[in-house]
């Protein structure tokens, strides 16, 4: 149902949509049943003069079962929902498939900074391609992202990937996604981060392999020069502490 509203562009976005469907079916059945019973009782037992209300203590077995049976059925439905949800959670958040490419995502007050590993496909090397507010990824490749924040809590949210992970300052988060559909989409900050929270969007471009290689070549050429001569020290802090060069 969600994919009518927003396109699926990653491997696990289908899982989340199916989980949504499963919960909608289970919860929808219970909701309709409860509301129907509710309105039927209201209509059936509306005040009719001369017809007094009944004295029901709630201990009568034939009435108590109207509570106990739904009670146990809901418990079963809850267990089904829990199992389905945990399976999706484990697949997305707790397993890291081997990565074809690792990118670094740094959130700061009101801008996203991305570091693509560049032609040598190793992160934190001089040939990294750093861009602001624009992330190019290659369709069909498994990506790991190292997510950090430089100041306040932000949240790396890519609706088309159905992916969200908060970036708490002082921590590095590792997650993965695998794009399946080319196109230009949005990256959002889903945790309030001050006045510029509303302008803190970034562009996600899922390229075909050729387009991606072209983009990488074009940017890799100017990347070393762009880092204004300062030799980036290796290690995680390199990408974080150097202020963002004007990569386009």
């Amino acid at each position, binding site marked *: 149902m969600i994919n009518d509203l927003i396109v699926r562009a990653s491997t696990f976005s289908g899982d989340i949509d199916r*989980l949504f469907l499963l919960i909608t079916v289970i919860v929808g059945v219970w909701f309709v049943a409860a509301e129907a019973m509710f309105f039927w009782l209201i209509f059936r037992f509306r*005040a009719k003069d001369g017809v007094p209300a009944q004295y029901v203590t709630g201990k009568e077995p034939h009435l108590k079962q109207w*509570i106990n049976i739904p009670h146990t059925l809901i418990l079963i439905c809850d267990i089904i929902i829990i199992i389905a949800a945990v399976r999706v959670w484990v697949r997305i958040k707790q397993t890291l498939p081997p990565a074809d490419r690792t990118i670094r995502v740094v959130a700061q007050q009101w801008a996203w900074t991305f570091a693509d590993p560049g032609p040598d496909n190793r992160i934190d090397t001089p040939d990294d391609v750093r861009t602001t507010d624009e992330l190019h990824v290659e369709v069909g490749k498994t990506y790991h992202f190292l997510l950090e924040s430089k100041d306040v809590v932000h949240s790396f949210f890519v609706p088309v990937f159905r992916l969200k992970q908060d970036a708490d300052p002082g921590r590095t988060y590792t997650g993965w996604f695998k794009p399946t559909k080319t196109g230009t989409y949005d990256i959002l900050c889903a945790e309030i981060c001050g006045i510029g929270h509303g302008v803190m969007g970034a562009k996600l471009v899922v390229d075909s392999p050729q387009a991606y290689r072209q983009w990488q070549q074009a940017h890799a050429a100017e990347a070393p020069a762009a880092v204004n001569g300062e030799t980036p020290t290796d290690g995680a802090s390199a990408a974080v502490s150097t202020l963002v060069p004007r990569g386009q």
Partner: protein
Amino acid sequence: MAEHTHERAHVAGTANDAHHDHHEVGWFKKYFWSTDHKVIAFQYMFTGMFLALIGAFMAYVFRMQLAFPGQPVPGFGVVSPGQYNMLITNHGSIMIFWVAMPVLLAGFGNYLIPLMVGADDMVFPRLNRLSYQIFFLSAIVLLTSLFVQNGGFGGAWTAYPPLSANKLYNLTPYGASMWLIAVALEFVAFLLGGINFIVTSMNSRAPGMKAFDVPIVVWTIVIASILFMASVGPLIAGAIMLLFDQTLGTSFFNPNRGGDPVLWQHLFWFFGHPEVYVVLLPAMGIVAEVMTVFARKKLFAYKTVIYTIIATGVLSFFVWAHHQFVAGIDPRMANVFTVTTVLISIPIAEMCFVYIATLYGGSIRFSVPMLWALAFMAEFLIGGVTGIYLGASGLDIYFHDTYFVVAHFHYTFFPIAVIGVMAGVTFWFPKMFGRYMNEFWGKVHFWGTVIPFNGIFIPLFILGAAGEHRRIFDYKNFPQFNHPWQNDLRIFATVSLLVMLLFQIPFLVNFVWSMFRGPKAPKNPWKSNTLEWTADSPPPHGNWAEMPECHRGPYEYSVPGREQDFWPQNEKA
């Protein structure tokens, strides 16, 4: 058991000149410095209603900004991003801490507990007055925080550090600290108030009133006070730490100097989730009272409701991190919390089923309080049901901090703080003011509120499912959310809000007019059983000349073999 049989109210005079022996108190002493639990209840209720108008105005402003971005909002002007954040932060804070809590917990608690347990007042009247004064001070501090330099605090009602801790990040140095002090004062006020509620309902029950003869609304308000008291502690500690981070430069939540921002999230939500049950339970209690009276029927299973209330209360301490699934907690912990979160739906579902089952075999009269109570049950089911989506950790990855969450918690908070409260106000109005409210205008207000309410938040469910994230002042920066159909949904929601706000005017007029000029109401207008209906309307200081005793449970309606279909608690067998 208490050995006194016939207590004389300390008011020497007979019922009608109950004020006789009191020296004639001045206007100020009677309304602003009174220790009478009914006057303090009105103080809480009117402060809550006044702040509800402010909260509603804020909602009006930022919904207009969302529907027509950039255009000046009539009555406010152009909304800048900083103002937008301030408006949503303080809309959330005001509606939860300064409207739902005072009206539901303190307003109804103060008014109903002494009357329903058959006491003349709270056990500590002066402490009760002090708790309102601290609450009033907290409201003043919050409202002034909106007008200080750089504006009010804009870091959301959850105030996550380092945004809330570092003035260079939130750009509202004074607003942030004043907001925090206001919230801390409000906690102190409700701790003091809570002690009064718990001890009064535990110790001051009328002779003969056993634990299971106490009406459900008293049970719910007492258990809500206990939940609040047990859950607010760590957040008071957190608030002290955050205030020191803001002002003294300590490093509790500053990651660069050894602190940890996730600690605040945990301390906040350890309080946050029990807090939503603190406001839910009194509303469920009010709905129980109203439903049983207008269905003329005994509550389906009194003990089951008590056990589900206690089960919900205790379980609510095990679920807090479902607010933080993607906020950086360890993914293995998320599995624990998704299990407890989805399982907490069982006691609540059980309670709803028992309420629905109470209607079976009833003789339902659709007067205004019953309409509100039934609407509460119908609307709250939507809120409860959509909670399962967010409790399922896998799905929360997508839905966290989107409008789906906003729509979900409005479908729980709105029935609690507006529909439930309206059920209570319209039901106890004759007792509070001795006059009837107008039935026709009551129904106009009812339909005019409930239908547009759905018009506001059903579109938000759809926008949320499309991935629209919350707290964004202008969606034209995000092409994905700038489609015409999304803008139309936002406009539809805003127009529904305007219609709903317009329909509040008939209520305010009806409320104020009926208070002075409504038709007189007898002691027991709805023919119900609980003790407050045995006192005069409005009850004098000290409530009864001769304190009532309790001989049976509160829900003995339509007992076979009796000509009347109700049996007041104080009537001898």
